[in-house]
Protein backbone atom coordinates (compact mmCIF):
# COMPACT_ATOMS: atom_id res chain seq x y z
CA UNK A 1 0.00 0.00 0.00
CA UNK A 2 1.32 3.44 -0.92
CA UNK A 3 1.91 5.80 2.03
CA UNK A 4 -0.78 8.38 2.67
CA UNK A 5 -1.64 11.10 5.17
CA UNK A 6 -4.78 10.80 7.28
CA UNK A 7 -7.06 13.51 8.62
CA UNK A 8 -10.13 13.05 10.75
CA UNK A 9 -12.74 15.65 9.78
CA UNK A 10 -15.68 16.67 11.98
CA UNK A 11 -17.15 19.30 9.71
CA UNK A 12 -18.95 18.64 6.37
CA UNK A 13 -17.70 21.77 4.60
CA UNK A 14 -14.19 21.19 5.95
CA UNK A 15 -14.11 17.61 4.66
CA UNK A 16 -15.25 18.63 1.18
CA UNK A 17 -12.75 21.51 1.10
CA UNK A 18 -9.89 19.25 2.24
CA UNK A 19 -10.41 16.75 -0.60
CA UNK A 20 -11.14 19.53 -3.10
CA UNK A 21 -7.78 21.16 -2.30
CA UNK A 22 -5.71 18.00 -2.87
CA UNK A 23 -5.92 16.28 -6.28
CA UNK A 24 -4.77 12.95 -4.81
CA UNK A 25 -7.16 12.96 -1.85
CA UNK A 26 -10.13 10.66 -1.24
CA UNK A 27 -12.91 10.42 1.32
CA UNK A 28 -12.77 7.46 3.73
CA UNK A 29 -16.04 6.26 5.28
CA UNK A 30 -16.51 2.55 6.08
CA UNK A 31 -13.40 1.68 4.09
CA UNK A 32 -14.65 -1.73 2.95
CA UNK A 33 -14.03 -0.96 -0.72
CA UNK A 34 -11.29 1.63 -0.41
CA UNK A 35 -8.92 -0.13 2.02
CA UNK A 36 -9.15 -3.36 0.01
CA UNK A 37 -8.40 -1.58 -3.28
CA UNK A 38 -5.54 0.41 -1.72
CA UNK A 39 -4.00 -2.84 -0.50
CA UNK A 40 -4.29 -4.19 -4.07
CA UNK A 41 -2.58 -1.09 -5.44
CA UNK A 42 -5.68 -0.25 -7.51
CA UNK A 43 -6.31 3.01 -5.68
CA UNK A 44 -3.42 5.05 -4.28
CA UNK A 45 -4.65 8.26 -2.63
CA UNK A 46 -1.98 10.37 -0.91
CA UNK A 47 -4.49 11.80 1.57
CA UNK A 48 -7.48 10.16 3.25
CA UNK A 49 -10.10 12.46 4.72
CA UNK A 50 -12.06 10.39 7.23
CA UNK A 51 -15.74 11.36 7.13
CA UNK A 52 -17.20 8.59 9.30
CA UNK A 53 -17.62 10.88 12.30
CA UNK A 54 -19.43 13.65 10.40
CA UNK A 55 -22.96 14.35 11.68
CA UNK A 56 -24.49 12.43 8.76
CA UNK A 57 -25.48 9.27 10.60
CA UNK A 58 -29.25 9.71 11.06
CA UNK A 59 -32.36 8.48 9.29
CA UNK A 60 -35.17 11.06 9.43
CA UNK A 61 -38.68 10.09 8.37
CA UNK A 62 -41.82 12.11 7.86
CA UNK A 63 -44.93 11.79 5.67
CA UNK A 64 -43.18 13.23 2.65
CA UNK A 65 -39.87 11.44 2.61
CA UNK A 66 -37.01 9.56 4.20
CA UNK A 67 -33.82 11.56 4.60
CA UNK A 68 -30.87 9.21 5.03
CA UNK A 69 -27.51 10.53 6.17
CA UNK A 70 -24.59 9.52 3.95
CA UNK A 71 -22.79 7.85 6.87
CA UNK A 72 -25.74 5.70 7.95
CA UNK A 73 -24.47 2.11 8.05
CA UNK A 74 -26.02 -0.29 5.58
CA UNK A 75 -27.08 -2.48 8.54
CA UNK A 76 -28.96 0.45 10.11
CA UNK A 77 -30.82 1.13 6.88
CA UNK A 78 -31.63 -2.55 6.33
CA UNK A 79 -33.13 -2.97 9.80
CA UNK A 80 -35.18 0.23 10.08
CA UNK A 81 -38.77 -0.99 10.71
CA UNK A 82 -40.69 1.95 9.22
CA UNK A 83 -38.40 2.15 6.24
CA UNK A 84 -38.91 -1.55 5.62
CA UNK A 85 -42.68 -1.04 5.60
CA UNK A 86 -42.66 1.95 3.26
CA UNK A 87 -39.80 0.89 0.94
CA UNK A 88 -39.41 -2.89 1.38
CA UNK A 89 -37.22 -3.19 -1.72
CA UNK A 90 -34.44 -1.24 0.07
CA UNK A 91 -34.04 -3.61 3.02
CA UNK A 92 -34.44 -6.67 0.82
CA UNK A 93 -31.71 -5.43 -1.51
CA UNK A 94 -29.33 -4.72 1.38
CA UNK A 95 -29.92 -8.08 3.06
CA UNK A 96 -29.36 -9.91 -0.23
CA UNK A 97 -25.69 -8.92 -0.31
CA UNK A 98 -22.68 -8.35 1.94
CA UNK A 99 -21.89 -10.21 5.14
CA UNK A 100 -23.32 -8.75 8.37
CA UNK A 101 -19.81 -7.52 9.27
CA UNK A 102 -19.58 -5.59 6.00
CA UNK A 103 -23.09 -4.17 6.47
CA UNK A 104 -22.01 -2.94 9.93
CA UNK A 105 -18.96 -1.14 8.52
CA UNK A 106 -20.03 0.20 5.14
CA UNK A 107 -22.12 3.33 4.66
CA UNK A 108 -25.04 4.00 2.31
CA UNK A 109 -23.08 6.62 0.37
CA UNK A 110 -20.15 4.21 0.08
CA UNK A 111 -22.59 1.61 -1.19
CA UNK A 112 -23.77 3.67 -4.16
CA UNK A 113 -20.17 4.73 -4.85
CA UNK A 114 -18.66 1.23 -4.61
CA UNK A 115 -16.28 0.08 -7.34
CA UNK A 116 -16.82 -2.68 -9.83
CA UNK A 117 -15.93 -6.31 -9.05
CA UNK A 118 -14.34 -6.69 -12.53
CA UNK A 119 -11.30 -8.86 -11.83
CA UNK A 120 -9.22 -7.05 -14.46
CA UNK A 121 -9.89 -3.73 -12.71
CA UNK A 122 -9.11 -5.20 -9.30
CA UNK A 123 -5.94 -7.13 -10.17
CA UNK A 124 -3.99 -3.87 -10.44
CA UNK A 125 -2.02 -4.75 -13.60
CA UNK A 126 -4.24 -5.84 -16.53
CA UNK A 127 -5.13 -3.27 -19.18
CA UNK A 128 -8.16 -1.42 -17.78
CA UNK A 129 -9.57 1.89 -18.99
CA UNK A 130 -11.28 2.42 -15.66
CA UNK A 131 -8.04 2.10 -13.66
CA UNK A 132 -5.59 3.52 -16.23
CA UNK A 133 -7.48 5.55 -18.86
CA UNK A 134 -6.39 4.62 -22.38
CA UNK A 135 -4.75 1.32 -21.40
CA UNK A 136 -7.44 -0.83 -23.02
CA UNK A 137 -9.92 -3.38 -21.67
CA UNK A 138 -8.81 -6.92 -20.91
CA UNK A 139 -12.39 -8.00 -20.21
CA UNK A 140 -13.58 -7.44 -23.78
CA UNK A 141 -12.88 -10.76 -25.47
CA UNK A 142 -11.44 -12.06 -22.20
CA UNK A 143 -12.97 -13.86 -19.26
CA UNK A 144 -16.20 -11.88 -19.29
CA UNK A 145 -18.59 -14.26 -17.51
CA UNK A 146 -19.45 -11.70 -14.82
CA UNK A 147 -19.58 -8.70 -17.15
CA UNK A 148 -22.32 -6.46 -18.47
CA UNK A 149 -24.86 -7.34 -21.14
CA UNK A 150 -26.54 -3.93 -20.94
CA UNK A 151 -25.00 -0.47 -21.17
CA UNK A 152 -21.52 -1.71 -22.13
CA UNK A 153 -19.30 0.30 -24.45
CA UNK A 154 -16.20 -0.33 -26.56
CA UNK A 155 -13.97 0.81 -23.67
CA UNK A 156 -15.52 -0.91 -20.66
CA UNK A 157 -17.98 -3.72 -19.89
CA UNK A 158 -17.63 -3.74 -16.09
CA UNK A 159 -20.79 -4.31 -14.03
CA UNK A 160 -21.82 -1.79 -11.41
CA UNK A 161 -22.46 -4.12 -8.47
CA UNK A 162 -24.59 -2.27 -5.89
CA UNK A 163 -27.85 -3.97 -4.86
CA UNK A 164 -28.92 -0.82 -3.01
CA UNK A 165 -28.45 1.31 -6.11
CA UNK A 166 -30.63 -1.07 -8.11
CA UNK A 167 -33.41 -0.57 -5.56
CA UNK A 168 -32.93 3.22 -5.46
CA UNK A 169 -33.27 3.33 -9.25
CA UNK A 170 -37.02 2.60 -8.99
CA UNK A 171 -37.67 4.97 -6.07
CA UNK A 172 -37.08 8.47 -7.57
CA UNK A 173 -34.24 8.87 -5.06
CA UNK A 174 -32.34 12.16 -4.73
CA UNK A 175 -28.65 12.53 -3.85
CA UNK A 176 -27.63 15.64 -1.91
CA UNK A 177 -24.01 16.79 -1.97
CA UNK A 178 -21.67 19.41 -0.57
CA UNK A 179 -19.03 20.66 -2.97
CA UNK A 180 -15.46 21.51 -2.17
CA UNK A 181 -16.04 25.15 -3.15
CA UNK A 182 -18.85 25.45 -0.59
CA UNK A 183 -21.79 24.92 -2.98
CA UNK A 184 -24.37 22.18 -2.72
CA UNK A 185 -26.23 20.10 -5.28
CA UNK A 186 -29.47 18.12 -5.45
CA UNK A 187 -28.99 15.30 -7.96
CA UNK A 188 -31.70 12.93 -9.22
CA UNK A 189 -30.51 9.34 -8.81
CA UNK A 190 -31.49 8.70 -12.42
CA UNK A 191 -28.41 10.12 -14.13
CA UNK A 192 -26.15 10.05 -11.05
CA UNK A 193 -24.16 7.10 -12.44
CA UNK A 194 -22.59 7.56 -15.86
CA UNK A 195 -22.43 5.20 -18.82
CA UNK A 196 -18.80 4.17 -19.48
CA UNK A 197 -18.67 5.94 -22.87
CA UNK A 198 -15.24 7.42 -23.54
CA UNK A 199 -14.46 7.98 -19.85
CA UNK A 200 -15.09 4.74 -17.93
CA UNK A 201 -12.84 6.05 -15.13
CA UNK A 202 -15.59 8.57 -14.34
CA UNK A 203 -18.42 6.60 -12.72
CA UNK A 204 -20.69 9.34 -11.35
CA UNK A 205 -21.39 13.00 -12.00
CA UNK A 206 -19.70 13.95 -8.70
CA UNK A 207 -16.76 16.33 -9.00
CA UNK A 208 -13.51 15.87 -7.09
CA UNK A 209 -14.09 16.91 -3.49
CA UNK A 210 -17.87 16.68 -3.80
CA UNK A 211 -19.22 14.86 -0.75
CA UNK A 212 -22.52 12.99 -0.68
CA UNK A 213 -24.34 14.20 2.44
CA UNK A 214 -27.81 12.61 2.20
CA UNK A 215 -30.02 10.34 0.15
CA UNK A 216 -33.69 11.19 -0.02
CA UNK A 217 -36.53 8.82 -0.78
CA UNK A 218 -39.77 10.64 -1.56
CA UNK A 219 -42.90 8.91 -0.30
CA UNK A 220 -44.33 6.78 -3.12
CA UNK A 221 -47.50 4.73 -2.82
CA UNK A 222 -46.15 2.12 -5.25
CA UNK A 223 -42.98 1.64 -3.17
CA UNK A 224 -44.98 -0.10 -0.44
CA UNK A 225 -45.50 -2.93 -2.91
CA UNK A 226 -41.89 -3.47 -3.94
CA UNK A 227 -39.50 -6.40 -3.96
CA UNK A 228 -35.89 -7.39 -4.68
CA UNK A 229 -34.89 -10.77 -6.07
CA UNK A 230 -31.32 -11.76 -6.80
CA UNK A 231 -29.36 -14.73 -8.10
CA UNK A 232 -25.61 -15.09 -7.54
CA UNK A 233 -23.10 -17.93 -7.46
CA UNK A 234 -24.05 -18.51 -3.80
CA UNK A 235 -27.43 -17.87 -2.22
CA UNK A 236 -25.79 -15.75 0.49
CA UNK A 237 -22.95 -13.24 0.63
CA UNK A 238 -22.26 -12.95 -3.08
CA UNK A 239 -22.64 -10.37 -5.81
CA UNK A 240 -25.53 -10.58 -8.26
CA UNK A 241 -25.23 -12.39 -11.55
CA UNK A 242 -28.66 -10.93 -12.13
CA UNK A 243 -31.13 -9.17 -9.86
CA UNK A 244 -34.36 -7.23 -10.19
CA UNK A 245 -35.93 -4.43 -8.16
CA UNK A 246 -39.65 -4.22 -8.90
CA UNK A 247 -42.74 -2.37 -7.69
CA UNK A 248 -46.34 -2.90 -8.73
CA UNK A 249 -49.55 -0.93 -8.40
CA UNK A 250 -52.33 -3.46 -8.98
CA UNK A 251 -56.08 -2.95 -9.18
CA UNK A 252 -58.34 -5.99 -9.52
CA UNK A 253 -55.53 -7.99 -11.06
CA UNK A 254 -54.56 -5.33 -13.58
CA UNK A 255 -51.19 -3.54 -13.50
CA UNK A 256 -51.92 0.17 -13.14
CA UNK A 257 -48.25 1.08 -12.78
CA UNK A 258 -44.92 -0.72 -12.54
CA UNK A 259 -41.32 0.07 -11.71
CA UNK A 260 -38.47 -2.18 -12.86
CA UNK A 261 -34.67 -2.03 -12.56
CA UNK A 262 -32.06 -4.72 -13.20
CA UNK A 263 -28.82 -5.28 -11.27
CA UNK A 264 -25.73 -7.40 -11.86
CA UNK A 265 -26.08 -7.14 -15.64
CA UNK A 266 -25.37 -3.51 -16.52
CA UNK A 267 -22.66 -0.88 -16.28
CA UNK A 268 -24.86 1.31 -14.06
CA UNK A 269 -28.17 0.96 -12.19
CA UNK A 270 -30.49 -0.08 -15.02
CA UNK A 271 -34.06 1.20 -14.99
CA UNK A 272 -36.30 -0.39 -17.63
CA UNK A 273 -38.95 2.22 -18.66
CA UNK A 274 -39.99 0.30 -21.79
CA UNK A 275 -40.65 -2.86 -19.79
CA UNK A 276 -42.65 -0.80 -17.28
CA UNK A 277 -44.72 0.64 -20.13
CA UNK A 278 -45.25 -2.86 -21.54
CA UNK A 279 -46.81 -3.95 -18.23
CA UNK A 280 -49.21 -1.03 -17.74
CA UNK A 281 -52.82 -2.02 -18.31
CA UNK A 282 -51.98 -5.72 -18.56
CA UNK A 283 -53.23 -8.48 -16.28
CA UNK A 284 -50.76 -9.32 -13.51
CA UNK A 285 -49.98 -12.79 -14.76
CA UNK A 286 -47.09 -14.85 -16.07
CA UNK A 287 -47.58 -14.07 -19.77
CA UNK A 288 -47.49 -10.30 -19.10
CA UNK A 289 -44.39 -10.64 -16.94
CA UNK A 290 -42.64 -12.71 -19.60
CA UNK A 291 -43.48 -10.16 -22.28
CA UNK A 292 -42.15 -7.34 -20.09
CA UNK A 293 -38.94 -9.28 -19.39
CA UNK A 294 -38.42 -9.77 -23.14
CA UNK A 295 -38.70 -6.01 -23.57
CA UNK A 296 -36.28 -5.37 -20.66
CA UNK A 297 -33.60 -7.58 -22.19
CA UNK A 298 -34.27 -6.66 -25.84
CA UNK A 299 -31.10 -4.58 -26.09
CA UNK A 300 -28.81 -7.05 -24.28
CA UNK A 301 -25.54 -7.95 -25.98
CA UNK A 302 -23.62 -11.13 -25.07
CA UNK A 303 -19.83 -11.37 -24.95
CA UNK A 304 -17.90 -14.66 -24.95
CA UNK A 305 -19.00 -16.19 -21.64
CA UNK A 306 -21.86 -14.05 -20.32
CA UNK A 307 -24.63 -14.94 -22.75
CA UNK A 308 -26.32 -16.97 -20.01
CA UNK A 309 -27.06 -13.72 -18.20
CA UNK A 310 -29.63 -12.68 -20.81
CA UNK A 311 -31.83 -15.67 -20.04
CA UNK A 312 -31.00 -15.53 -16.33
CA UNK A 313 -31.99 -11.87 -16.04
CA UNK A 314 -35.24 -12.58 -17.89
CA UNK A 315 -36.09 -15.38 -15.43
CA UNK A 316 -35.03 -13.30 -12.43
CA UNK A 317 -37.31 -10.44 -13.49
CA UNK A 318 -40.27 -12.77 -14.11
CA UNK A 319 -39.70 -14.40 -10.72
CA UNK A 320 -39.48 -11.03 -8.94
CA UNK A 321 -42.76 -9.83 -10.50
CA UNK A 322 -44.50 -13.16 -9.87
CA UNK A 323 -43.48 -13.23 -6.19
CA UNK A 324 -44.56 -9.62 -5.70
CA UNK A 325 -47.92 -10.06 -7.42
CA UNK A 326 -48.63 -13.12 -5.26
CA UNK A 327 -47.99 -11.20 -2.03
CA UNK A 328 -51.04 -10.61 0.14
CA UNK A 329 -51.83 -6.92 0.31
Amino acid at each position, binding site marked *: *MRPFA*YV*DERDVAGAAAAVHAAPGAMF*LAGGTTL*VDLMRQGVLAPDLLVDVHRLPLGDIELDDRRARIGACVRNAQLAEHPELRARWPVVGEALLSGM*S*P*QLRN*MSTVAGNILQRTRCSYYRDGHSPCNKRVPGSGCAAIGGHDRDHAILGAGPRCIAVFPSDLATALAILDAIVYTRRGDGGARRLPFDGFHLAPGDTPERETILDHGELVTHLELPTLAIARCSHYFKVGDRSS*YSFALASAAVALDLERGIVRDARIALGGVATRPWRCPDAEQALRGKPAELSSFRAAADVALAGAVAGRHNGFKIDLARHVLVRALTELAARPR
Partner: protein
Amino acid sequence: MVLLSVNGARHELDLDPRTSLLDALRERLGLTGTKKGCDHGQCGACTVHVDGRRVLSCLALAVAQQGHEVTTIEGLAAGERLHPMQRAFVECDALQCGFCTPGQIMSAVAMLVEVDDRRRLTDAGIRERMSGNLCRCGAYPNILAAIRRVRP
Protein backbone atom coordinates in the same frame (compact mmCIF):
# COMPACT_ATOMS: atom_id res chain seq x y z
CA MET B 1 0.10 8.97 18.15
CA VAL B 2 -3.00 6.81 17.90
CA LEU B 3 -5.05 6.11 21.01
CA LEU B 4 -6.68 2.68 20.85
CA SER B 5 -9.08 1.30 23.42
CA VAL B 6 -8.98 -2.49 23.36
CA ASN B 7 -10.73 -4.81 25.81
CA GLY B 8 -11.07 -1.93 28.25
CA ALA B 9 -7.39 -0.97 28.21
CA ARG B 10 -6.05 2.15 26.52
CA HIS B 11 -2.93 2.00 24.35
CA GLU B 12 -1.01 4.87 22.80
CA LEU B 13 0.72 3.67 19.64
CA ASP B 14 2.92 5.29 17.04
CA LEU B 15 1.33 3.82 13.92
CA ASP B 16 1.74 4.25 10.17
CA PRO B 17 -1.73 5.26 8.86
CA ARG B 18 -1.59 2.18 6.61
CA THR B 19 -1.78 -0.16 9.61
CA SER B 20 -4.99 -2.16 9.73
CA LEU B 21 -6.72 -2.67 13.05
CA LEU B 22 -5.91 -6.37 12.61
CA ASP B 23 -2.16 -5.76 12.30
CA ALA B 24 -2.19 -3.31 15.19
CA LEU B 25 -3.87 -5.90 17.41
CA ARG B 26 -1.61 -8.77 16.41
CA GLU B 27 1.75 -7.18 15.74
CA ARG B 28 1.74 -4.22 18.14
CA LEU B 29 -0.45 -5.31 21.02
CA GLY B 30 0.37 -9.04 20.91
CA LEU B 31 -3.32 -9.96 20.76
CA THR B 32 -2.92 -12.84 18.32
CA GLY B 33 -6.31 -14.42 19.00
CA THR B 34 -7.75 -12.42 16.11
CA LYS B 35 -6.69 -14.24 12.94
CA LYS B 36 -5.59 -13.02 9.51
CA GLY B 37 -7.27 -15.22 6.90
CA CYS B 38 -7.75 -13.52 3.53
CA ASP B 39 -6.92 -9.90 4.50
CA HIS B 40 -9.58 -8.87 1.96
CA GLY B 41 -12.79 -8.87 3.99
CA GLN B 42 -14.04 -12.13 2.59
CA CYS B 43 -13.46 -14.80 5.24
CA GLY B 44 -14.45 -13.32 8.62
CA ALA B 45 -11.47 -14.78 10.56
CA CYS B 46 -10.52 -11.26 11.72
CA THR B 47 -13.97 -10.41 13.15
CA VAL B 48 -13.85 -8.18 16.26
CA HIS B 49 -16.39 -5.88 17.90
CA VAL B 50 -16.18 -2.11 17.55
CA ASP B 51 -18.62 -0.39 19.90
CA GLY B 52 -20.37 -3.76 20.22
CA ARG B 53 -20.89 -4.28 16.47
CA ARG B 54 -19.09 -7.07 14.62
CA VAL B 55 -16.70 -5.75 11.98
CA LEU B 56 -13.73 -6.97 9.93
CA SER B 57 -10.49 -5.74 11.46
CA CYS B 58 -8.55 -6.35 8.22
CA LEU B 59 -10.53 -3.64 6.38
CA ALA B 60 -10.51 -1.19 9.29
CA LEU B 61 -7.64 1.27 9.55
CA ALA B 62 -6.33 1.41 13.12
CA VAL B 63 -6.01 5.19 12.93
CA ALA B 64 -9.78 5.47 12.29
CA GLN B 65 -10.65 3.57 15.51
CA GLN B 66 -9.76 6.37 17.92
CA GLY B 67 -12.64 7.04 20.27
CA HIS B 68 -14.16 3.63 19.57
CA GLU B 69 -14.11 0.63 21.91
CA VAL B 70 -12.60 -2.51 20.38
CA THR B 71 -13.27 -5.98 21.81
CA THR B 72 -11.31 -9.03 20.70
CA ILE B 73 -11.62 -12.72 21.54
CA GLU B 74 -9.16 -12.09 24.43
CA GLY B 75 -11.69 -9.69 25.96
CA LEU B 76 -14.62 -12.06 25.95
CA ALA B 77 -13.91 -14.29 28.95
CA ALA B 78 -14.21 -12.96 32.51
CA GLY B 79 -10.84 -14.04 33.88
CA GLU B 80 -10.78 -17.83 33.71
CA ARG B 81 -14.52 -18.04 33.20
CA LEU B 82 -15.30 -18.54 29.52
CA HIS B 83 -18.04 -16.61 27.77
CA PRO B 84 -21.08 -18.89 27.21
CA MET B 85 -20.37 -18.90 23.47
CA GLN B 86 -16.77 -20.03 24.05
CA ARG B 87 -18.00 -22.76 26.37
CA ALA B 88 -20.59 -23.89 23.82
CA PHE B 89 -17.95 -24.11 21.08
CA VAL B 90 -15.84 -26.35 23.33
CA GLU B 91 -18.78 -28.50 24.42
CA CYS B 92 -20.14 -28.92 20.88
CA ASP B 93 -16.69 -29.54 19.36
CA ALA B 94 -17.47 -26.67 16.96
CA LEU B 95 -14.04 -26.60 15.35
CA GLN B 96 -11.40 -28.68 13.70
CA CYS B 97 -8.23 -26.70 12.98
CA GLY B 98 -9.49 -23.73 15.01
CA PHE B 99 -8.20 -20.96 12.77
CA CYS B 100 -11.63 -19.45 12.05
CA THR B 101 -12.90 -20.05 15.60
CA PRO B 102 -12.15 -16.66 17.22
CA GLY B 103 -13.91 -14.93 14.31
CA GLN B 104 -16.82 -17.37 14.47
CA ILE B 105 -17.25 -16.78 18.20
CA MET B 106 -17.00 -12.98 17.98
CA SER B 107 -19.45 -13.00 15.09
CA ALA B 108 -21.90 -15.31 16.88
CA VAL B 109 -21.86 -13.27 20.10
CA ALA B 110 -22.68 -10.05 18.22
CA MET B 111 -25.21 -11.83 16.02
CA LEU B 112 -27.32 -12.84 19.02
CA VAL B 113 -27.34 -9.21 20.17
CA GLU B 114 -28.52 -8.04 16.72
CA VAL B 115 -31.57 -10.29 16.79
CA ASP B 116 -34.69 -8.91 18.46
CA ASP B 117 -36.19 -12.26 19.38
CA ARG B 118 -33.62 -15.05 19.66
CA ARG B 119 -36.28 -17.72 20.12
CA ARG B 120 -37.56 -17.06 16.60
CA LEU B 121 -34.11 -17.58 15.10
CA THR B 122 -34.25 -20.62 12.81
CA ASP B 123 -31.30 -22.77 11.75
CA ALA B 124 -31.53 -21.21 8.29
CA GLY B 125 -31.58 -17.78 9.90
CA ILE B 126 -28.45 -18.53 11.92
CA ARG B 127 -26.66 -19.83 8.82
CA GLU B 128 -27.57 -16.72 6.85
CA ARG B 129 -26.49 -14.39 9.67
CA MET B 130 -23.19 -16.28 10.02
CA SER B 131 -22.50 -16.37 6.26
CA GLY B 132 -19.62 -13.90 6.61
CA ASN B 133 -17.55 -16.44 8.57
CA LEU B 134 -16.06 -19.20 6.48
CA CYS B 135 -14.81 -22.49 7.91
CA ARG B 136 -12.63 -24.40 5.48
CA CYS B 137 -12.75 -27.52 7.67
CA GLY B 138 -16.52 -27.50 7.25
CA ALA B 139 -17.36 -27.57 10.95
CA TYR B 140 -20.62 -25.76 10.21
CA PRO B 141 -23.03 -28.34 11.73
CA ASN B 142 -21.32 -28.12 15.12
CA ILE B 143 -20.89 -24.34 14.91
CA LEU B 144 -24.65 -24.18 14.37
CA ALA B 145 -25.19 -26.52 17.32
CA ALA B 146 -23.00 -24.35 19.57
CA ILE B 147 -24.88 -21.18 18.67
CA ARG B 148 -28.21 -22.93 19.24
CA ARG B 149 -27.02 -24.00 22.67
CA VAL B 150 -26.36 -20.38 23.67
CA ARG B 151 -29.60 -19.10 22.19
CA PRO B 152 -32.05 -19.16 25.15
